[in-house]
């Protein structure tokens, strides 16, 4: 059992948990993920590591309540326990001195960008962070990202905060004004990562993406997480989650990501019916 030491509702439906897991924290590196299970009948879901503290033995995860499992997870509070928590899984980000690096984070993807940007900066890179959200209320960790990057630029889809537009708009500007970018890293919703890759491909900028495929075991045992990269089948949980974005077959990945859509909807509906409002909104505002 793994204790939740801290809970922070970053923005409505996006929560931060700091979880006591010394074995995971001892080895965690930027770019890796964990798999957790909330309760005895629960499924195993992967979450990217948003931060870790070796000394305190904690892992920070940031997750958005989208399906049954993440909603259920969101009902847990400080002092509660998560049943299963395994990691660190996946191959860590490749950190070295590249030169000028752009780190793009969209939506809840801002969280996993954070430790990678920090490590890249610590390795001597000049790190430009570009983060975006649908609107002001959904943007979080501006301060953390500002500290982790050399420079931070922000955007909201609706213009309710900072620039109006998409992260790709800011990325394009950065490319045009600065010319040389040695590496781009993008984490966020699939369409965003895909759009970033299309843009950087035009300019020949190597781009790393972190793929959040469906997973079961997370150790290379089932193949549920397979993706096509450069024409080859790879397992995201062990060969990734980071891949060369220009080689990823995004069309395949997005179709595979909705395999269980009907079941997921059913599970969520049933859960919401049974828990009419015991969620974190404490009284029905979630509807």
């Amino acid at each position, binding site marked *: 059992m793994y204790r939740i030491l801290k809970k922070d509702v970053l923005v409505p439906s996006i929560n931060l948990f700091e979880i006591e897991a010394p*074995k*995971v924290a*001892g*080895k965690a590196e930027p770019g890796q993920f964990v798999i957790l*299970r909330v309760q005895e*009948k*629960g*499924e*195993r879901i992967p979450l990217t590591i948003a931060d870790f503290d070796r000394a305190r033995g904690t892992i920070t995860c940031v997750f958005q309540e989208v399906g*049954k*499992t993440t909603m259920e997870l969101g009902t847990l509070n400080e002092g509660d326990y998560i*049943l*299963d*928590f*395994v*990691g*660190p*899984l996946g191959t860590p980000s490749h950190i070295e001195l590249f030169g000028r690096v752009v780190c793009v984070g969209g939506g809840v993807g801002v969280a996993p960008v954070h430790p990678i940007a920090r490590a890249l900066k610590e390795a001597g890179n000049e790190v430009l962070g570009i983060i975006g959200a649908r609107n002001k209320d959904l943007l979080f960790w501006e301060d953390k990202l500002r500290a982790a990057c050399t420079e931070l630029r922000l955007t909201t889809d609706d213009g309710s905060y900072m620039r109006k537009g998409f992260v790709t708009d800011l990325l394009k500007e950065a490319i045009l004004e600065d010319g040389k970018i040695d590496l781009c890293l993008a984490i966020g919703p699939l369409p965003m990562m895909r759009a970033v890759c299309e843009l950087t491909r035009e300019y020949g900028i190597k781009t790393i993406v972190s793929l959040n495929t469906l997973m*079961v*075991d997370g*150790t*290379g*045992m*089932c*193949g*549920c997480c*397979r*993706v*096509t990269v450069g024409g080859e*089948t790879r397992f995201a949980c*062990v060969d990734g989650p980071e891949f060369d974005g220009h080689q990823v077959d995004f069309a*395949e990945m997005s*179709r*595979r990501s909705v*395999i*269980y859509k009907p*079941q*997921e909807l*059913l*599970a969520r509906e*049933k859960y919401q019916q049974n828990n009419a409002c015991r969620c974190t909104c404490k009284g029905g505002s979630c509807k």
Partner: protein
Amino acid sequence: MTEKKKAINPQKNPMSVQDPALRVKNFNEVALGYNEAAVIAEAGRCLQCKNMPCRQGCPVDIDISAFIKLAGEGDFAGAAKKIKEKNALPGVCGRVCPQENQCEKYCTLGKKHEPVAIGRIERFCADWEMANGTGSQEVAPPTGKKVAVVGSGPAGLTCAADLAKLGHRVTIFEALHIPGGVLMYGIPEFRLPKAIVQAEIDNLKKLGVEIQVNSVVGRFATIDELMQEEGFDAVFIGTGAGLPHFMRIPGENACGVYSANEFLTRTNLMKAYLFPDFDTPIRVGRKVAVLGGGNVAMDAARTALRLGAEESWIVYRRSKVEMPARQEEVSHAEEEGVRFKFLTSPTRILYNDDYWVTAMECLQYELGEPDESGRRRPVPIKGSEFILDVDTVVVAIGQGPNPLVPRTTKGLACTKRGNIVAETETGATSKPGVFAGGDVVTGAATVILAMGAGRTAANSIHNYLTGK
């Protein structure tokens, strides 16, 4: 006894099974086992051969005629004890061993009649002991030595139990959230009830073995770190062969194509058959094709029917006689309505605009000259392509060793295929203090061989730790 010997029943005493029409609708155990009268009658068929040919067929050298004699006398506790001298998991092996290729293959009675049902007698004795709880276990005084066991399949479980009884402090590290390896995540409930495996695991805990689940060795710690930083004096690696092989044909990543591991793990470990009461979903279409001819393939095909598929096909490259699956599983599958396409192999998987499987193109084969395995090699028949109408494909063509431990352990010799090299007689690897056994060494094999390797390694580890 003497009168019985005069008229030998040419056939095994039948074992009651769940009716096929009913059982395809549930996940309960299919084979129900003998009762006392049947087991005594079956034991009575044994000739008590002096040369014990059956024993030579047993991979772990169980004194078969001796335990059958005890069972025939109604001394089931004694029989179970006799079996356990060599086999730590008789309740499991009695259910899943391919007896027709092992002990029963060499049984004298089998020359003229059906062999003695050694497996069924073994199963009865094990179950009897489990129910009546006579298995007292002696644990030697603590030696002060610490051993890490990596993986909790039959190899790891056996090694851990033996070492604990010898007084060593054993910690098992298991990657998944439930220990048991293939016995829990792979072999279905209807063939091996999980309660039986759980009883073995509870037993280990009683022996003082600590089980740390959610612990992927190679990630949270390497083998070297376990030995140097965590103070383990020796390590046993029993990480199995969990890496699924795919066909490498077009369309294999389409939605609706599963590895058998994924299909079975979702069902067995995650209980997807109880969705939405359990959270993990699985999708089985109307027509399922399972590629392969081993136990894994049979399990997947029979699982598909239980999940509601209308048609479940085994598509196998060779012919029926070459199928490596246990005979009993093949006949159970047939009774349940699994259908077979022999001498057939897929060439590509077809899918619709949404990337869902719609059909599979197959090629017909014929048997040619024997290959290195002694089985006749299947050769494709030119122009024999045909379309099999399916919407789910399960690939069950084999598994390789999980590369994580080999990749993260310096100085551990492995084969080209990634199997760990370990001496058969001792389980010793190229790395001092590190032993290995089971599927990770042999490649995907059997429960009894993994169990035997765990036991062999436990003996060597004991000698290593006590300086013998």
